[in-house]
């Protein structure tokens, strides 16, 4: 027995088993929508993307668009250069359809100052992504500054100059830096709603405090004023509970001509109240609040607050009359990040925002698959059961055939190890296991058994006229095993290399390939060692 544990083949198996168990316990196994429930969108682009930078851009735009909806746990991956797969936990058909629209539609970007739109996405002619125009990040003292230059159309530049003229006040004077200014803030929106916002007083107060406190992740600066936000969102806001006062009700009725939608937080107002709103002639849109993020900020579609600077407002150098104002068509947005990565992230966020989350290439069509969570949960249990029963039945068949526990035990152990190793590999590469990939595991383990039968039959041969050396017999067995493994690999590899968009195929291929490789390289050599050891004792 001690000899057995000295063999490097056995040690290799044990080491990998250990690593797999570690990986599974630390990384956990990830399950796709087949088991967790959820929706998967297959987005087919009109034209193939041409570079990996473009692919990264498209995936990042799509995942930003999904983030903006307040959805958590979204996963966006590119399959090849023509497909984007987006996975969300949502299964409510109405929400799913909303997300589908969002994926198809271009977001409308607006920069708003004092309740008036100063420019929108269509006014931006170009974003300069070259360093000669100032694009990029620059280390400045403790932080890192990022800069994003862009070009406005003639018309928008004119409007911008007039609307921002002298929107700064001088707040002080500093020997080293000269005058210091306090400038007005512009608010950036994506898909600013054309709706009345209804909010209960408690939530209003909570949001007010949250906005004042700022939120680093959501790009809400410290000291953001709720009234200023509402003004810039250009949406009327009424703070009321389900018992609406007559005054507020009349206000609402007054808005009817101009607005047809009302935005409310989910699960706050009574059903009767919402029906009343419908009866008045409004469509009610529900938006769910997220912990720590001001609900009003999400509801209004606000994305960023950016201060103007003294130069673009013609404060420095100071121009007396608006008629002589310098017109800036090339603008630069600047900001600070805590470190390089942070600055780069912010830079990319803002540039996506300015491009209004529009994809460089249109969406040809979207396929989708929804699985309700209760169904998925059951699937996982059944499939696990399936695996265990299959393992047991195979062992039973082999026992009937060989009647030799010494052989059956290592076969069962090897099968079990293969399952653990494949799962370990899946958790290591953070693969989302779906039904097809689990079928792949069963299939791979099935081939594994075939190979062990070949080894066992070679070792069990009794003919004395045949070479007696176990080593030679195992060698012969391995020729067959390698040939068989090579055919399995050669059928599965094309799926991984060219099977873009064929999501399910890829999952199946990945588990089978890893299973076959694990078998040939790790478990089968170890099995032949164990079998040789156990059977040579008998001979």
């Amino acid at each position, binding site marked *: 027995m001690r000899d057995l544990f000295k063999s490097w083949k056995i040690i290799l198996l044990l080491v990998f088993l250990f690593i797999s168990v570690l990986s599974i316990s630390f990384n956990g196994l990830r399950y796709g929508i087949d088991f967790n429930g959820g929706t998967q969108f297959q987005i087919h682009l009109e034209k193939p993307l041409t570079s990996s930078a473009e692919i990264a851009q498209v995936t990042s735009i799509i995942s930003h668009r999904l983030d903006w909806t307040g959805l958590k746990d979204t996963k966006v991956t590119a399959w090849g250069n023509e497909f984007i797969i987006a996975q969300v936990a949502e299964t409510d058909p109405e929400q799913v359809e909303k997300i589908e629209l969002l994926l198809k539609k271009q977001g409308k970007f607006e920069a708003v100052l004092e309740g008036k739109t100063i420019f929108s996405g269509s006014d931006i002619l170009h974003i300069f992504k070259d360093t000669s125009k100032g694009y990029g990040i620059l280390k400045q003292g403790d932080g890192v500054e990022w800069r994003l230059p862009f070009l406005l159309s003639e018309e928008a530049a004119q409007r911008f100059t007039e609307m921002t003229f002298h929107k700064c006040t001088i707040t002080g004077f500093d020997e080293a830096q000269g005058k210091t200014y306090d400038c007005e803030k512009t608010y950036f929106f994506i898909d600013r709603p054309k709706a009345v916002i209804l909010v209960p007083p408690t939530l209003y107060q909570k949001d007010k405090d949250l906005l004042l406190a700022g939120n680093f992740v959501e790009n809400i600066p410290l000291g953001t004023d709720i009234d200023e936000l509402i003004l810039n969102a250009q949406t009327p806001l009424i703070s009321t509970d389900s018992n609406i006062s007559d005054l507020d009700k009349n206000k609402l009725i007054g808005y009817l001509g101009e607005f047809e939608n009302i935005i409310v937080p989910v699960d706050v107002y009574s059903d009767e109240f919402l029906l009343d709103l419908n009866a008045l002639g409004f469509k009610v849109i529900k938006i769910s609040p997220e912990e720590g993020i001001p609900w009003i900020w999400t509801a209004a579609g606000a994305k960023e607050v950016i201060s103007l600077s003294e130069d673009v407002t013609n404060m420095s150098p100071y121009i007396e009359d608006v008629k002589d104002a310098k017109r800036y068509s090339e603008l630069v947005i600047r900001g600070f990040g805590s470190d390089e990565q942070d600055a780069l992230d912010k830079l990319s966020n803002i540039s996506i925002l300015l491009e209004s989350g529009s994809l460089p290439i249109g969406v040809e069509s979207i396929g989708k698959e929804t699985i309700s969570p209760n169904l998925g949960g059951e699937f996982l249990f059944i499939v696990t059961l399936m695996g265990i029963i299959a393992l047991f039945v195979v062992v039973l068949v082999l026992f009937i055939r060989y009647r030799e526990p010494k052989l059956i035990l290592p076969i069962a152990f090897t099968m079990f190890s293969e399952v653990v190793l494949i799962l370990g590999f899946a958790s290591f590469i953070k693969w989302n296991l779906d039904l097809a990939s689990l079928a792949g595991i069963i299939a791979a383990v099935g081939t594994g058994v075939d190979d062990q039968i070949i080894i066992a039959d070679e070792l069990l041969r009794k003919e004395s006229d045949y070479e007696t050396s176990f080593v030679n017999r195992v060698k012969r067995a391995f020729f067959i095993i390698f040939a068989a493994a090579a055919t399995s690999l050669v059928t599965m590899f094309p799926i991984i290399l060219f099977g873009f968009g064929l999501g*399910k195929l890829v999952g199946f291929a990945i588990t089978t390939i890893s299973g076959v490789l694990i078998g040939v390289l790790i478990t089968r050599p170890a099995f032949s060692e164990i079998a040789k050891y156990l059977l040579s004792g008998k001979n």
Partner: protein
Amino acid sequence: MFYLSFKAFFMNSFLFFSQVKSVTLIFRCDLMELYSGNYKLYLIVPLILTIVFLFIVLVYPGVQPGIDLKGGTQIIIRSDTPADAVELKELLEQKFDFTELSINSISSPTTHGINIQFSGETTLDKAKAELDLAKSLLESDPVQAEQHALNSISLSSKFFKASDEGLKGKELIEKADEIYSKAKDALHQEIKSVVAVNFGLSSDFFFSTKEVPPVLGQTFWDNALFVSIVALFGIIIVIFFFFREFIPSVAVIYAGIFDVLTALALMSLTGIALGLNSIPALLLLIGYSVDTDILLTTRLLKRKDKTPRKRVIDSMKTGLTMTFTTITAVLVMLVLSYFYQIDVMFNISAVILFGLFGDLIVTWMMNAPILLWYVERKAKKA
């Protein structure tokens, strides 16, 4: 002793064989005598089957492409009571104008399910066509484009009432797209509620929906076809590399193709669609089932002990054990996934099982005779 237990094993497994008549013929005779007579006669069986299967796959009833590959919508609903598919079909056809509607109700001892599939709904398809026209005309002829967008909206309004809100140009088309999506969603909801009402389901019933636009289906199909062709060439290269002899290599490759053909033929007969689930299973099948062929070929060509005929019998013992363990494992998958209606697993396991049946035939009735003949003729020459 060993031989006896082997025979007992076969008797137990007799059930599997009753499905493939030609194979049962073999096992009624003594195993050792199998290849003693004019074994070349066995070749007739796989040859005739090849022609029959080709007819089934290509002519009648033909392989059905699944919605993954041709586009369409699938809604699977679980229920506690068995559903009457015919009744439901009439009900849905009264309300909607579907193209290629098919409804299967599946009942297993544990659950009941309704599988609704259709490739489109006439009014919505028209709305989509108008929408596509509008999109393509937007640049060249905005007036026409707007007209088509309005047409699309009025068609969609059969399922989802909405106004064009007096929008123009691109925004109008986006609105039309939005209304179309909502109409599509409303249709799915209506189907589900028709089912729910008629079968008394609670509101949180188990369901899954899948929607594949035809264009996407076409792309999947092209892609899957390309992958399969690459895989086929890969196999040819690998087999020739390992064996380096023409006739044995061709026999192994033919065996792989025969397995796939058997699976496709039985899929056509049982109505299992060719989809994204069954394609990897078919590919795997090639790699999986040539195992036994490789085993047989290796033992026959590379070994010199005993007579070739005895070596065939030896390989057969190993090969049949291999195939049977796999068949039992796959049967477990098949039965459980049928009981619990796990569509994906059921398709994969059925395809593999079909292929393994084919493999039993082709390995022992074609590959073995061809190789024996090849080896014996070589020996005579030498």
